């Protein structure tokens, strides 16, 4: 699988990589290793690479852009490094956003959207913050809101792009435990990217993107 941005050099060149359903994979990716690009490809945001890429049984290369958007909206939860939240929506609206963007995601909810949002918030211990403005939350709280949003409706795949790097060490572990528990309850696959090798031991499998990616610098 190869990928290059239009007019740029190849950023991703991976011979083969398989992640099983339900796996919790730690992907070690120092900056410049092409991790954000890889995640963009898996999430179907970037145009498909040459070679083959299957996500949750779908051949991403065969999907149109709207179909990839739908796949992402319905089956993938995404957590950024930081600034995960829409600043002008409150916590509740931020968590509910994926469902409001893609109606398919609603079908995955047990019960109403309001209950699902409350459940997700409770799971991550932020049920008291639902009506807060997101700009008033601490970074740790913001990341938990982001996780609650990613887990809403239990999507099959959770992609986390260095979600803990903005947190201090003890909060990092706490967040990770919370995330693991939620992912386990939801039965989701977790693809966790970080350059913090200290976290690798917590995962089922640990991979290094710099080893996998032949295009990496």
């Amino acid at each position: 699988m190869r990928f290059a941005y239009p007019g740029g050099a190849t950023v991703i060149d991976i011979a083969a990589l398989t992640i099983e359903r339900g796996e919790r994979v730690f992907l070690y990716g120092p900056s410049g290793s092409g991790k954000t690009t890889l995640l963009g490809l898996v999430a179907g945001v970037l145009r498909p690479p040459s070679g083959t890429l299957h996500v949750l049984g779908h051949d991403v290369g065969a999907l149109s852009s709207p179909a990839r958007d739908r796949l992402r909206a319905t089956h993938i939860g995404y957590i950024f490094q930081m600034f995960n939240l829409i600043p002008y929506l409150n916590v509740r609206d931020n968590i509910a956003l994926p469902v409001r963007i893609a109606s398919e995601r609603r079908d995955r909810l047990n019960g109403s959207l309001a209950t699902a949002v409350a459940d997700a918030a409770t799971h991550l211990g932020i049920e008291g913050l639902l009506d807060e403005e997101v700009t008033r939350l601490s970074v740790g709280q913001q990341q938990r809101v982001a996780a609650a949003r990613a887990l809403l409706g239990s999507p099959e795949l959770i992609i986390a792009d260095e979600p803990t790097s903005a947190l201090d060490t003890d909060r990092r572990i706490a967040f990770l435990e919370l995330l693991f528990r939620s992912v386990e309850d939801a039965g989701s696959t977790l693809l966790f990217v970080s350059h913090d090798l200290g976290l690798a031991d917590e995962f089922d499998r640990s991979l290094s993107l710099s080893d996998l990616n032949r295009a990496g610098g």
Partner: protein
Amino acid sequence: MLLLHLARRSLTNRLLTTSLTALSIAFSVALLVGVENVRTGMRESFSNTVSGTDLIVGSRGGTIQLLLYSVFGMGSPIANISYETWKKWDEHPAVSWTIPYALGDSHRGFRVIGTNETFYERYRYRGGQPISLAEGRPASGVFDVVLGAEVATRLGYTLGEQIAVTHGMSAVGFMNHDEMPFEVVGILERTFTPVDRAVYVTLEGVTAMHMGWESGAPPMPGEEVHADDVLAMEEVHVSQITSFFLGAESRALTLQIQREISTSEEEPMTAVIPGVALSEMWRGISYAEDGLRVISGFVVLVGILGMLVSIYTSLEARRREMAILRALGAGPRRIVSLLVLEAGLLSAMGAALGVGLVYAGLFVLQPWLEGRFGLLVPIRMLDGVQLAFVGAVIVLGFAAGLVPAVKAYRTALHDGLSVRV
């Protein structure tokens, strides 16, 4: 629904920018709509300068020229009509009344109009309002003069003042009829029409002041005719007038009288229906108004452009937001729609605010405009043209949103989930 919700929240989140942008659109829309209101008001004020008159009659010439010198006090007549001809029409069975006008002299730049008592009884303006005297009485004696409201205010004259009349329209009176002073006997109520800017004497008064001037030049020293000489005369013989206003016995007779006057063998004359001539004239001068319209159109464009710039510049700060929406499954089209919707909402708010400003402004300024300029700008529902303008502004707003939206679309496609700075 989601997009509308997002667009609204996003706009309220940037409240200051949003309100400033909406305000600038509001002002431009207010200008556009307000110009239309003033235009309507002007047209109506204009066509109501004189009312209740069926025909205005003068010596043969252009209808607009006749209207200009008779109603607006501008320009001068080419020829006069004889007193006898006017009298004939005054006594015509189909004619109810006539107001004679004898023009040609001035007092310190204001026109002197020789007329008779019918003027005070029959002259109507703006929807049939009669003129009335604020002070004193109508001019009846040879040397009586009644002042229009503007003349009285500007020159500070009061009843009993003695004034001299100038031959011709020069403000500098080097050819004054000094030998015959007139006395102010009345001052008219303000009408906000050209009536305010003239002084009124009797037909005899105009004749008297020209005695000794028959050649057109001032009398030779020693040959002046003095006021006392005139008063000593048994009768002042009026031989000419300039034009006359005519009221028919019934409206239906107007066209018949007009035809009869135009084809009259005795003297070449032109008769115009004021309403028709006024709207003809309005068409002639409304080009200026079109210019005003074009300018306010450009102001709106500038307002929209300002919005475009403000949304465009906000995009950089919102790349993060776009990436989040993308990650949550929003397609690039959603991003485009969101920005277009924001622009549309902004311009719609601006347009609504602008219309509100116009009504508020009219409400406050209407009395002042009427008092100061005699311009009655009516407060009524937006007319078709104005609604079309407001609609066009909103559509334009949506269209302008496409520019930042396309930029965001490209950024979203390229950035993916990262935000490269």
